[in-house]
């Protein structure tokens, strides 16, 4: 059984297109932002400033950044509860995400959602969802709405590989294929559902093959390579927009941290050696080296970029720390809408 999550078939890469240098550099910045943000979130959690569960995205940054870069402003996105990175890459402000983790009124859901339920409807960012697999049918419904209205949007669902064993995954993908809906199911295969390795939970190792059950297009993607991620997502987006067909992407990646803040990085279910081996393909290092090799950035420029990112995260931390809690009366707001549609 493969100890590495990354597929070994890597195409010989061409040089990076200088015309897209700005975008390529922005991907590095977004990945660095997620990395530094998550490091700071872990620190804040340890200090008791963030409560509840806190699932860090460190190691998987290229997945959110590369895939979200292929979407347009009107597309719909849902995520699992490990979604800080997706929220940042989609454009929710660093301050609003950090403040939400702190449970503050200035958070992107006013302190009511927390780490697992980040939303920004104006960006089509329709939730972190806390029940494994539960949001996959929601995405099918959003894609249904796109077809119903005959627009060219796509609906994208991010979930972990552990979700593919539950019924919601099967039911949602079956309907999406049956009805030819513009949905993209992006499985972030980070090898472990909490402490259970993929091969201990799934009878089928290659998750992409599950798409065959639904006669659905599928692809295995190297999730540590932001460019490969972006290219695969572009293909899926084109299929959704132009052919109105769904895709299952199995993105092979790795979680460098524990499942949540209460889970050590290695121990019962994986070895130190395995984690260290995986860290050799740190998506930020992989992309930094690529940008340097192709002459789009140098080490100094990356250092300056990292410094500005760290400052942004520090500012967000200070903002969140000093921001006020929600007013007590917020407890009872937004349970129900009071109005009826007038039409």
């Amino acid at each position, binding site marked *: 059984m493969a100890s590495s999550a990354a597929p070994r078939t890597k195409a010989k890469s061409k040089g990076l297109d200088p015309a897209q240098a700005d975008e390529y550099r922005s991907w590095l910045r977004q990945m660095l932002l997620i990395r530094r943000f998550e490091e700071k979130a872990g620190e804040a959690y340890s200090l008791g400033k963030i409560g509840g569960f806190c699932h860090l995205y460190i190691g998987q940054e290229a997945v959110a950044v590369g895939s979200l870069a292929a979407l347009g402003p009107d597309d719909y996105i849902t995520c699992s509860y490990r979604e800080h990175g997706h929220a940042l890459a989609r454009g929710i402000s660093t301050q609003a995400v950090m403040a939400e983790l702190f449970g503050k009124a200035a958070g992107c*859901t006013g302190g009511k959602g927390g780490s697992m339920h980040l939303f920004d409807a104006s960006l089509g960012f329709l939730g972190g969802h806390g029940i494994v697999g539960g949001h996959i049918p929601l995405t*099918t*419904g959003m894609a249904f709405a796109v077809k119903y209205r005959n627009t060219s949007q796509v609906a994208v669902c991010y979930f972990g590989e552990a979700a593919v064993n539950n019924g919601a995954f099967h*039911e949602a993908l079956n309907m999406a294929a049956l009805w030819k809906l513009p949905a993209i199911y992006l499985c972030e295969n980070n090898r472990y559902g909490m402490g259970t390795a993929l091969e201990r939970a799934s009878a089928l190792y290659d998750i992409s093959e599950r798409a065959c059950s639904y006669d659905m297009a599928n692809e295995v993607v190297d999730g540590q390579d932001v460019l490969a991620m972006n290219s695969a997502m572009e293909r899926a987006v084109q299929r959704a927009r132009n052919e109105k067909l769904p895709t299952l992407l199995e993105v092979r990646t790795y979680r460098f941290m524990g499942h949540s803040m209460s889970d050590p990085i290695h121990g019962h279910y994986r070895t130190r050696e395995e984690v260290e081996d995986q860290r050799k393909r740190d998506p930020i290092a992989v992309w930094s080296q690529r940008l340097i090799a192709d002459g789009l950035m140098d080490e100094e420029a990356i250092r300056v970029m990292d410094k500005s990112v760290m400052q942004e995260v520090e500012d967000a931390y200070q903002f969140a720390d000093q921001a006020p809690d929600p007013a007590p009366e917020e407890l009872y707001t937004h349970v129900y809408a009071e109005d009826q549609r007038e039409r």
Partner: protein
Amino acid sequence: MPTLTYRDALNQALREEMQRDPDVFLMGEEVGVYQGAYKVSRGLLDEFGPMRVVDTPITELGFAGVGVGAAMVGLRPVVEFMTWNFALLAVDQLVNSAAKMRYMSNGQVGVPAVFRGPGGSALQLASQHSQAFESWYAHIPGLKVVMPATPADAKGLLKSAIRDENPVIFIEGEMLYNTKGEVPEGEHVVPLGKADIKREGADVTIICHSKTVSVCLRASEQLAKDGVNAEVLDLRTIRPLDTEAMLNSVAKTHRCVVVEEGWPFAGVGAQVVDTIQREVFDELDAPVLRVTGADVPMPYNKHLEKAAKADPAKVVSAVSQVLYRE
């Protein structure tokens, strides 16, 4: 005023709301080609086409989630469960997705969807097909729970439910589909959260909903022969509960019996009794009693099944007790 069956009143509400609002669509098992397992959707596929009358696989969790997702981006789905027994597979979507989306998103994303289908027992369908789940859903903040007892209310309440911005659990009576009654034509809208006095009386209040309304009306006729004038209050909406109507009636009669089809433990009646004893304790001349389904899975045998159900004799007996006639 035309006389319609409960089934056709629901059909009329669906048709009118789909004509009124192009974002309203119906989805579920057998709603299209088959014309509805209980024929509530008869003719709708022909009129509105397959994009708006969507036959689904037998996949309750999945299509409930599809309905929630479509509602999150502004469509107004009416999701039909063939029965509420099967909707148990969809409870995660109803409770974790539909009910909480508005709150978790701090008001950014609502779920204006109706989830409807028959609930309660029919005749000899045994344990898994004879269940009343309204108290489960009424427990959940974020959901509304609506249960019409008459054809007119079926039409008016379904129209309100479809126009409501919240997720509405709309439980029809499986045994009510063939019942007939006068139904106003056109814009007949019954607001959610308003109970209705189905029979005025002064001696005792009988609070009920859905199928038990007819049980209580029959009990009232028997009681009338004994000189007892019962008031029958149909809740119509379980959540939000029309507390004012309940309390006004009890303040008038000073005695109360609460009747429901479901099981007794943590049932709808438990909530009603809690409210009454807290708010109008001094008005009561007797403890409030409850008539419920027996606290057992529904048996198949028809004599055992009859014994398990709330019926007029049990209601008459409970009323006699609160009147201290026994």
